[in-house]
């Protein structure tokens, strides 16, 4: 178990270094950083001085090591556009994105899993078929279109919900939350649903497929032959066995919800990291782009590690106590 976690950690560090290399490559090869820092009338001599002062003429590895060292401390330099440290910008925007993503993931799970179980159990029912058809729509419509349609209906026509922004926020230390005010919650509904819809249909279809698979297994047949109630069989025996693949996918999807909240954030003008990133791309704000890249990679790595550990919780076969595994009577 310890060996496994350490191996995973080593792998994670490798992944992070690779991503850092790409992020660092952005600095070096996308335009000249000096050009981005100084005005057009700076002389060539001054540019060289600056270059030397910033260490930009050091060998590649030295520069990379410096970048990694700073990144590990959370220092990604200063945003070209905002003229503020990137770390500050990100900390400011992080709560908005995380709240949106986590609420969206919860909606996806809390609606997707029961729908998946239901459609798995009642394969031929009218409701199942409607769910399946609706889920097809959910999968095939692009996120931005769903967002815009929601805005049109609930924001413009019905005027129930705000069409943009995060509403009022409350500061808890450095964390700002919109979950404690009515306007914050109202503002959250539409973006969260928009972001959740695709994941929800994915989870529903996955749970359904897994349920169908598990319901065919011998141990479910044997459980029926022992006269256990349907509830015990479906929710006690079958559902838990569908969880391992569902955890994997949900974990990966949570990563991509955070990473790809960009579109939803731009549609709803949600002041999160995605919006920051889009703006950074427009302005070629490389420090922000690099930080965002490293940040998202970190999320993915951490989530994957958590998913691997969750397997251990769910599946006793992975917690092998090797001496006992071969135990005989």
């Amino acid at each position, binding site marked *: 178990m*310890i*060996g*496994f976690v*350490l*191996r995973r950690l*080593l792998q994670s560090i490798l992944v992070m270094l690779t991503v850092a290399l790409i992020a660092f490559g952005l600095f070096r090869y996308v335009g000249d950083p000096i050009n981005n820092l100084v005005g057009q009338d700076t002389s060539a001599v001054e540019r060289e001085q600056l270059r030397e002062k910033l260490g930009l003429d050091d060998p590649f590895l030295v520069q990379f090591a410096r970048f990694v060292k700073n990144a590990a401390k959370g220092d990604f330099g200063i945003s070209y556009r905002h003229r503020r440290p990137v770390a500050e910008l990100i900390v400011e925007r992080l709560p908005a994105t995380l709240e949106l993503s986590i609420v969206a993931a919860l909606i996806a799970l809390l609606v997707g899993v029961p729908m998946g179980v239901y459609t798995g159990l009642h394969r031929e029912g009218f409701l199942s078929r409607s769910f399946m058809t609706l889920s097809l729509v959910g999968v095939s419509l692009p996120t931005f279109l769903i967002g815009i349609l929601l805005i049109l209906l609930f924001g413009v026509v019905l005027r129930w919900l705000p069409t943009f922004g995060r509403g009022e926020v409350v500061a808890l230390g450095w964390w700002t939350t919109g979950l404690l005010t009515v306007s914050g919650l109202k503002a959250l509904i539409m973006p969260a649903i928009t972001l959740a819809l695709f994941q929800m249909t994915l989870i529903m279809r996955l749970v359904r497929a897994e349920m169908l698979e598990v319901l065919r*297994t*011998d*141990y479910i*047949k*044997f*459980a*029926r*032959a*022992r*006269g*256990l*109630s*349907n509830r*015990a069989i479906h929710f*006690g*025996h079958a559902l*838990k*066995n569908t969880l391992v693949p569902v955890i994997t996918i949900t974990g990966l999807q949570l990563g991509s919800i955070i990473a790809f909240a960009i579109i939803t954030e731009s549609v709803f003008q949600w002041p999160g990291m995605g919006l920051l990133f889009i703006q950074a791309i427009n302005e070629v704000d490389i420090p922000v782009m690099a930080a965002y890249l490293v940040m998202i990679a970190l999320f993915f790595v951490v989530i994957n590690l958590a998913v691997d550990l969750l397997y251990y919780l*769910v*599946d*006793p*076969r992975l917690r*092998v*106590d090797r001496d*006992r*595994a*071969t*135990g*005989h*009577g």
Partner: protein
Amino acid sequence: MPAETPPLLEVRDLRVEIPTRRGVLVAVDGVSFHIEEGEVLGVVGESGAGKSLTGAAIIGLLEPPGRIAAGRISLEGRRIDNLDAEAMRRLRGRRIGMIFQDPLTSLNPLYTIGRQLVETILTHTDLTERQAREHAIGLLAEVGIPSAAERFDHYPHQFSGGMRQRVVIALALCANPRLVIADEPTTALDVSIQAQIIALLKRLCREHGTAVMLITHDMGVIAETADRVAVMYAGRIVEIGPVREVIEQARHPYTIGLMGSIPLVGHDVERLSQIDGAMPRLDEIPAGCAFHPRCPHASERCRRERPERIALGNAEVACWHAGELAGRGAVTAGVVRERRENRNARTGDGRPLVELRDLARHFDVSAPWLTRLFSREGRKVLRAVDGVTLTIPRGTTFSLVGESGCGKSTVARLVVGLYRPSRGTILFDGQDYAKLDSHAAMAPVRRRLQMIFQDPYASLNPRWRVAEIVAEPLRAHGITRDRVEIRDRVGALLRQVGLSESDARKYPHEFSGGQRQRISIARALASRPEFLVCDEPTSALDVSVQAQILNLMRDLQRELGLTYLFISHNLAVVYYISDYVGVMYLGRLVEWAEAKSLFRDPKHPYTRMLLDTIPDLEMTGRRRAPVAGEVPSPISPPSGCAFHPRCPLATARCREMRPEPLPRGDGGEVACHAVAENRLPERAPRETPLRQEAD
């Protein structure tokens, strides 16, 4: 049966239909039988006979779209086939229990066995959780799980296959049902475990007064366990009656053929009697008597009218000619089973074709290095084959037997070159084959040896036509590239294995299992090899089809002078096909000898134990010695003689020193300290009465 008390279970005219897009298939057709309190009814038949569906229909677990279309099922006089789902569910487990084939998949892997037991007990009784736990632990002890209280909190994967089947039995019996439907309860188990599980099931049902419907394809298990037997064919019961009567005086031609198809240890026959063809598919069940296309006695009436069951003696038989055939079962078998002639004389010149010298293959199964570093464990080496020496004379069959994990399949793969040996040599016709390292150097040898695999469904490429499959060795070995010649040779090969030339255009899925195995043999023969390695070639096949394949292999050996290395766990099959038999245990050859001699006078305690596991089909009343223990993990085999933990004769020396092979006195060898020290107990010689004498 007395009229006043209804039988425990009564099934009348049961008909199970499976609607499909192309019409309604009738899988069970007019099946009637009853089971008395505490009685064991065996239901035997080959795959597709409808026996499992009958069991599923009784317990109300037919998989949709299968449905009971007609008939009635009564339990204790009460009709149960029309109960609603909830009432039927309450019946399951409490009145009718069920045991499935594969213990490895029958238990939910995510819950402890204790939790699964307690859950089931609480569903059916008013016990408190604590009482249920005590009851469960008692049951586990009763089914022979050692230190049951401790094992209660273990997960299924922490048990071996045999132990898991014990847990399954405990689960099926935990609410004390009156009837247990056991669907192939021992098929997935090793022979030694099989005997233990059958003995356990018999004892428990006797003690609890539980009736059993024992569904199996294995006549031996039925002969040992059942009181009465029903023989099913194509969805109908063709013969039903007391087990002894059906086995010894089979009256239905199918039963007669089935009995004749089973090879028996101690019976020396040149050919097994065989029923040609195979069980019809559900969508092409013939009119009249479904068996008539395969029946040697079929008449015009059989083709037109379906026979109903009529009483004959204590049995009932559904055959128009049952009266004429009555009692001819044994005679027929006797006629077809002509005595085997002096077998060794018929074969080659006795020169060795294949010699294995101290052959070994080790696999590294260590955990990744970081894990090893932290848990401070060393490298783990699986010694799948660890020093096997044997010689196969030209034109003979050498069989390797042993339970799973003994390394017999690894030997087969080493011999054909699918694995490289870790140690030792393989001499093929005097040439050290294993040392050849270039593909080109191996090619001339490769052409002379071929392999037949176990699973005829997985070993043929489903996207290739039979012609391409059979021609592949011809092309691969560059034997010929001429299209006409290839076509002719493929045609000849197909005829040789009993198929027709027109089959060459078909795809594998158009054939039954037995026919596919014939294709597999044709492919193996294409490069005109001298040596065939056959890894369990019949274990995926039904008995009647197995007889066809075994006969074919025998015929081919005689015609072509082939040499076989035959791998099997079925001792009767091995007895039938082999000239020499080697017994493997945990990677080592513990005993080998000429087949008849080995079966008549086994010396190694393991060989004796294996022979004792053969079900007693001849009903001699021979008591089987209960076999203790299970095969240990080959990763950490016991010290000294690996068999010592299960051996009744083990001494301190056995635990410390590995025995060396000693001559048996008949040309064979045995590796056992007890033999060396001359402290082997006498063993009662096997009774092998002929069928006729058994009446």
